């Protein structure tokens, strides 16, 4: 297992956001986390990154408990976030944003290799490298956000809503690239509202409802599950005649 949540409870003040949550993600997988608004998806991401600390339970990364480690140590061990709503540093250039992704790493041959890789995955990012990030279109910002995360050379990429606010063509492109990144060896844990797209590329998925995992399984199984079809894939359940 690359990442495990064991009975995680997370609170914001009195609000009990994650309730005894368990996930386990194998190296090489794409795992998707589905759920409606305010179900605890973003809190899951923040708990992985260490921005929010769980009250109970353990988070295991690569065999080691990490729930007490500071965020920078988690980044060093190979977890990188692609943040929701494309939270780039808006007044820094695209290149400076990519540099921030590699903040804890030395400059040198590896940095240059990763930069080339990001530029070949996203030629558009290369074109825009000297532009201030806040002036890019939504789709371009999403590409920079993904590129920035890849600059950390992560083993686990945590993506928060990669399709949010993107046009359908961009969504297709982004999901293609997610699959490419995964095939190149990076494990992906992806929070996503667009269940259709998420289940089309994920190997497995968890469904989160008001802070609890209510369903999990392979993407194929979940696509056939009547509850998923009704709640997330937008299909009406046809009553048996």
């Amino acid at each position, binding site marked *: 297992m690359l990442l495990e949540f064991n009975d995680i409870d997370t609170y914001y003040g009195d609000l009990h956001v994650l309730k005894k949550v368990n996930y386990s993600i194998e190296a090489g997988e794409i795992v998707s986390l589905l759920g409606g608004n305010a179900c605890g998806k973003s809190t899951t991401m923040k708990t992985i*990154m260490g*921005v929010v600390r769980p009250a109970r339970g353990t988070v295991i990364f690569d065999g080691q408990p990490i729930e007490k480690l500071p*965020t*920078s140590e988690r*980044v*060093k061990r190979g977890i990188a*976030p692609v*943040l929701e*709503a494309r*939270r*780039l*540093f*808006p*007044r*820094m250039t695209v290149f*400076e944003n990519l*540099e*921030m*992704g590699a*903040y*804890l790493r030395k400059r040198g041959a590896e940095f240059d290799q990763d930069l080339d890789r990001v530029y070949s995955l996203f030629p558009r990012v290369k074109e825009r490298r000297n532009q201030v990030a806040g002036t890019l279109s939504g789709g371009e910002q999403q590409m920079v956000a993904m590129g*920035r995360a890849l600059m*950390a050379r992560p083993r686990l990429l945590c993506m928060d809503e990669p399709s949010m606010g993107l046009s359908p063509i961009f969504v297709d492109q982004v999901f293609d690239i997610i699959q490419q990144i995964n095939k190149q060896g990076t494990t992906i844990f992806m929070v996503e509202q667009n269940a259709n797209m998420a289940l089309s590329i994920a190997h497995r998925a968890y469904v989160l409802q008001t802070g609890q995992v209510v369903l999990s399984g392979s993407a194929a199984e979940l696509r056939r599950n009547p509850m998923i079809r009704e709640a997330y894939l937008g299909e009406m359940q046809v009553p048996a005649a």
Partner: protein
Amino acid sequence: MSFSSLLLQQTINGLSLGAMYALLALGFTLIYGILELINFSHFNVFMVGSFIAMWTLQSFGLSGQSIILTGLPLVGVLLAAFAVTMLASGTLGVVIERVSLRPLRGITGPAAMITTIGVSYILFNIILVTVGADAKNFPNPLPPMRWHVDGAVLELREVLIWVVSLVLMAGLWLFVQKSRLGKAMRATAQDPEAARMMGVDVDRVIMTAFFLGSALAGAGGLIFGLYYNFTSFIIGFTAGLRAFTAAVLGGIGNVPGAMVGGILIGLIEAYGGQFIATEWADVIIFSILVLVLVFRPAGLFGRLAPSKS
């Protein structure tokens, strides 16, 4: 004196005052940019800095304006005085942050700002009690060199102030733009949570901002002493308030804005004093501040901060 030489003379004076205000304004802007905190202790870090500068110069055997140095000894003494003053003031800023502000991190509301007012008063009273209330003669080893330009007088101390301020501001600009820690500072100012998730140690960034801001305030304190030939426990208030105004005028949080704002305040003070009346300087300065903020609430170069999520 003709009008044009008066104008030139006041431009020279205003640029010198403005350089000092700009150095002080940068400290307000660096810390506000990252913490959204108005750091009132900065007023008196500047004041303490000018005392540190005075003691450093005295430790070289200088007193008053009677001992003049030239050539290498002058350069050496000044370099040492700036280095010691800036290091000590920077350290004072770091200690203030560590002891009184870090424990309040993450607490919303005015607690941190009120704390900085408290720290400011502590510094003010420590100097008052230990050094006394009378103004102190500030050692000035500069030779009385002066040049006559078009009916105006340019003194060596003014040239020195300009050169030192330019070097310090250019250095800060390069640091913020090019260095790894400087980029982390900008990233933290723009989105602290995202910066943290890139692996930035936000505490270290905040400490750096306090060190740099306070070191610049210390340099400002030394410049104050060289310019006015005295220092006193009360100098922090007026200069601090004008420098804070400069930071707001330029757009608080914006580094070049603080530089330009400082120069503008210095020029306004000098022209206002010459062409209206010295006693009206603060009325003029703060009226212009009010006017600018009414029409441009974010300051001349600022942008209204988007609400942080």
